[in-house]
């Protein structure tokens, strides 16, 4: 039975989530050098086209279509066959199925865009498109089905993920780690200064991401109800707590609070609360945000020590955030907050924490291994990196024949 309020809310949320992708483009673009701004923006922006077409042709059916052994949806909804205005029997039963389909499409778009921060400033455009498309088909769609699809095997084991701590943030973070290892560091890494060229652009992107995140997490209730409000509140509180904590830790550790630190902390808090948003109390969300601030800060600092060129910290913020948030859900989840969820450790349920850790291991290993193999194959067949000369010239000119600032 279609509810007008729910339909309007999820449609508006879909719009909010779409806005996160150009927001992410700006967030990333501010952190690269001025010769790579457009190349970096394009890697996020073009996902709107590439993944939307993939999604309506096969992605939605693979993710949410009739289950095959808990592993993947079959292709009976190929090209949106039978996906129309009638509500689905299994998903979001109070809104037209095409609303649910387009809302989920926005998640599929931003997930491969998140990975691009790891290989910023050095990947050719054509193999990037190929990788993102194959990755979405082989990693995103199955993992989405395991956790959110009816009959998905991780969902059947009791793994919970409210809005994408595993499906979005851990898959992209694990893929980012594989990309860092396969592509290697940027030319001059550790010797040259790779300073962000425009941090105000990054802050603008942070604002758009935060705004969009209300649709990402709030909308994941798939109805305009109390759970949506709980998720909305959790999202905001974790974002603010993450920003406060990162800034504070950096101030103590480095003697100066930085703008990039504040922006990074906000994104860390928002990413970390994503799996938990609709399942935890406001005070738990604050604790999750605070943990995100200090743990993601430590992860990013650790990266600098080990010398991996995860250029824009996809692993340290989204990968680690997804892991921490999913485990935190195992600790802080409460049926009193959301009767449709689980009780966590603090409510006396140890088993659920174990289930969540199992989910992290399965998704993390699967996404890492598949991404590594995909990247290796594409590298062997067509080559992933730009030439040394083009890397010095910058992607804007070498891949797109234009420059951002004239």
């Amino acid at each position: 039975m279609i509810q007008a309020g729910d339909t309007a809310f999820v449609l508006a949320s879909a719009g909010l989530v779409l806005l996160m992708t150009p927001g992410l483009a700006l967030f990333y673009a501010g952190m690269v050098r001025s010769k790579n701004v457009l190349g970096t923006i394009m890697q996020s922006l073009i996902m709107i086209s590439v993944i939307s077409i993939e999604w309506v042709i096969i992605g939605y059916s693979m993710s949410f279509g009739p289950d095959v052994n808990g592993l993947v949806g079959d292709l009976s909804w190929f090209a949106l066959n039978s996906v129309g205005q009638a509500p689905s029997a299994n998903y979001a039963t109070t809104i037209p199925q095409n609303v649910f389909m387009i809302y989920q499409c926005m998640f599929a778009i931003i997930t491969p865009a998140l990975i691009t921060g790891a290989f910023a400033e050095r990947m050719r455009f054509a193999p990037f498109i190929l990788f993102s498309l194959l990755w979405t088909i082989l990693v995103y769609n199955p993992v989405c089905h395991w956790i959110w699809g009816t009959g998905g095997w991780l969902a059947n084991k009791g793994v919970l993920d409210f809005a994408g701590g595993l499906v979005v943030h851990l898959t992209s973070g694990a893929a980012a780690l594989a990309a860092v290892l396969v592509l290697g560091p940027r030319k001059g890494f550790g010797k040259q200064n790779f300073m962000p060229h425009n941090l105000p652009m990054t802050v603008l992107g942070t604002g758009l991401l935060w705004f969009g995140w209300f649709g990402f997490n709030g909308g994941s209730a798939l109805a305009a109800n109390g759970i949506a409000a709980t998720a909305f509140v959790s999202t905001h509180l974790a974002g603010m707590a993450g920003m406060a904590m990162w800034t504070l830790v950096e101030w103590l550790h480095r003697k100066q609070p930085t703008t990039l630190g504040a922006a990074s902390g906000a994104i860390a808090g928002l990413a970390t609360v994503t799996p938990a948003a609709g399942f935890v109390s406001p005070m738990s969300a604050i604790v999750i945000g605070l943990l995100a601030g200090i743990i993601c800060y430590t992860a990013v600092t650790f990266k600098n020590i080990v010398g991996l060129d995860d250029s824009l910290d996809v692993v340290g913020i989204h990968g680690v955030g997804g892991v921490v948030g999913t485990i935190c859900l195992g600790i802080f989840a409460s049926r009193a907050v959301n009767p449709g969820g689980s009780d966590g450790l603090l409510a006396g349920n140890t088993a659920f924490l174990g289930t969540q850790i199992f989910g992290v291991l399965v998704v993390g290993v699967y996404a890492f291994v598949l991404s590594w193999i995909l990247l290796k194959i594409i590298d062997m067949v067509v080559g992933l990196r730009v030439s040394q000369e083009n890397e010095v010239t910058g992607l804007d000119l070498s891949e797109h024949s234009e420059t951002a600032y004239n």
Partner: protein
Amino acid sequence: MKKIEAIIKPFKLDDVKEALNDKGIKGMTLSEVKGYGRQKGHKEIYRGAEYIVDFIPKIKLELIVEASQVDEVVECIRQAALTGKIGDGKIFVLPVEEVVRVRTGETGKEAI
């Protein structure tokens, strides 16, 4: 004729320009440059990565004067640009063979 090139701290530009104006020097060329000498660069921190920025922004002034004015003008610039701290800059004096004013074709002293 001599060319005076002065590398100074950016915030001292107005003082130097005013002092030169008072001396009757009514023209100069300015560039924003970066460089380092004894003054150390500064540190910038981005997500915990520390970058040492060696090249510090400076202003380079170039002006041509008659040989007889050189000592006076150099001292004028020096006094106006002085803070007493490392990084105040340097002044170079170079010989100039010829000056030509594009508009009129005047040369030498008249063209300065």
